[in-house]
């Protein structure tokens, strides 16, 4: 690791101000992704602001019947929360489908949203990568791209978003609450929080320098049956090739979001509208505009088949 200085933040406002005024400063919470990348010198912060003691670790009911999840709530605690298990089961399911028990004990809600791609060319510092080194090119486009994205891709980047939790958050239309370096608060719809790579794949979120996530807010519960189906190379502790988050309502309406296939957590309104026509129609709508490589073309069929399995399970329940 490159040398860095370290401080423990004592308030959200001072943490944001410090991060905004110091180039090379980064927040650290769980640290499970950041430290991994620092060891590889992919991340080289010069100053770490430890935000673990800011008290942002509570889950509270909101006035309109939703849930406000503190940025520092650990993945284990969020998955196990009684209200989340009852009203937002798709989120509990997505969380426990991700990482390992040890990592979920440390990883935070905000950190999970901010985790970086597992594209092998991003991780290998000898390879070109526009996300790691803007302008250096993309090794994945003509390289080993089996695990990578087929939606939201650009000529500069096809790195997939790795999170399971964020897929469920996207389905639930969560909002990301922040405080910026000047102390101003705002709430960002999760649809706008993650950016498409375009020709600036190193810019991944809507956060401004110094802006800190304080909580993630869920709207009031959707009801219905919640499913998170993850397809991966191992039965446990592996990133998704394809994942489907689904909520089926009693009236035959449904909502879908997808992981493993997009450069950000993927959701298409037209896919929800196709629910009554079945898995094939939903897949077709979700995959509109897909751009594949010879290595990851299989993901299109895998999306359709994963959806078919989710639909069959739902029909068996009904």
């Amino acid at each position, binding site marked *: 690791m490159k040398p*860095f200085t370290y401080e423990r933040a004592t308030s959200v406002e001072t943490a944001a101000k410090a991060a905004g005024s*110091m180039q090379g400063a980064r927040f650290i919470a769980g640290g499970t992704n950041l430290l991994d990348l620092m060891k590889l010198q992919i991340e080289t912060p010069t100053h770490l602001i430890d935000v673990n003691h800011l008290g942002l670790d509570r889950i509270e009911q909101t006035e309109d019947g939703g849930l406000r999840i503190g940025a520092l709530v650990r993945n*284990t605690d969020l998955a196990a929360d009684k209200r989340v298990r009852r009203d937002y089961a798709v989120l*509990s*399911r997505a969380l426990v489908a991700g990482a390992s*028990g040890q990592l979920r*004990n440390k990883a935070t809600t905000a950190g999970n949203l901010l985790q970086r791609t597992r594209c092998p060319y991003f991780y290998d510092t000898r390879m070109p990568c526009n996300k790691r080194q803007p302008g250096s090119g993309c090794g994945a486009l003509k390289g080993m791209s089996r695990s990578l994205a087929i939606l939201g891709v650009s000529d500069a980047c096809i790195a997939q978003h790795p999170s399971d939790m964020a897929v469920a958050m996207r389905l639930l239309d969560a909002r990301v609450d922040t405080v910026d370096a000047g102390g101003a608060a705002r709430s960002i719809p999760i649809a706008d929080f993650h950016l498409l790579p375009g020709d600036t794949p190193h810019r991944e979120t809507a956060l401004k320098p110094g802006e800190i996530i304080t909580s993630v807010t869920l709207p009031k519960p959707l009801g219905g049956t919640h499913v998170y189906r993850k397809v991966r190379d191992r039965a*446990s502790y592996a990133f998704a090739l394809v994942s489907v988050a689904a909520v089926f309502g009693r009236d035959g309406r449904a909502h879908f979001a997808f992981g493993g296939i997009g450069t950000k957590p993927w959701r298409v309104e037209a896919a929800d509208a196709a629910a009554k026509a079945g898995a094939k129609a939903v897949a077709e709508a979700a995959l509109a505009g897909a751009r594949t490589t010879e290595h990851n073309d299989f993901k299109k069929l895998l999306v359709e088949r994963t959806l078919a399995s989710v639909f069959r399970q739902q029909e068996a329940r009904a």
Partner: protein
Amino acid sequence: MASTPVSRRGMLRGGAALAAATPLMAHAQTPSTGPQRNIGAGMIPVELTVNGREVHLQLDPRTTLLDALREHLHLTGTKKGCDQGQCGACTVIVEGRRINSCLTLAVMHDGDKVTTIEGLGTPDRLHPMQKAFIAHDGYQCGYCTPGQICSAVAVLDEIRAGIPSHATADLDAVAMSDAELRERMSGNICRCAAYPNIIAAMRDVAGEAKA
């Protein structure tokens, strides 16, 4: 063990210290490309309670909890495998929860209580999970074993606390089962593939605790 005049570990420790001296000095002579501001620069005091004992350390902020335990406190039971959170050999229990000690900085744990394999039991007074691993042959080479045992102890607590996993059919009814144990232990890799015996050991301890 402490009375052994010359141990293999002691020799290795001395050797490592000598070997480390040269590159450190070389590093000191290179021009500094350090941070712009120096809040908390240099060594940082860290206080931990490790296996019930209070320890005070002065650490480079880059020191992981794993390196603090192994290199500074010489608690070498906790192992460094992949050093990137994939293998679980470095698993320790911090404030009652198992974590990968390789993926966290020691300075982030100032004031925390840490339990390592040395704190669970000793050769004379083994923890029930240690006894069960021996009885069920839950290892071959043993390198992953301290992490496996720390994880296994915490897993049983997690199931008792009703924390769901990917193997949980009903999120509101978490129950002990082989499927639960296997899923929850997926963050601990065993190259010798002692998995069936590890599950047997865990099942044994879970059963005893219930009775």
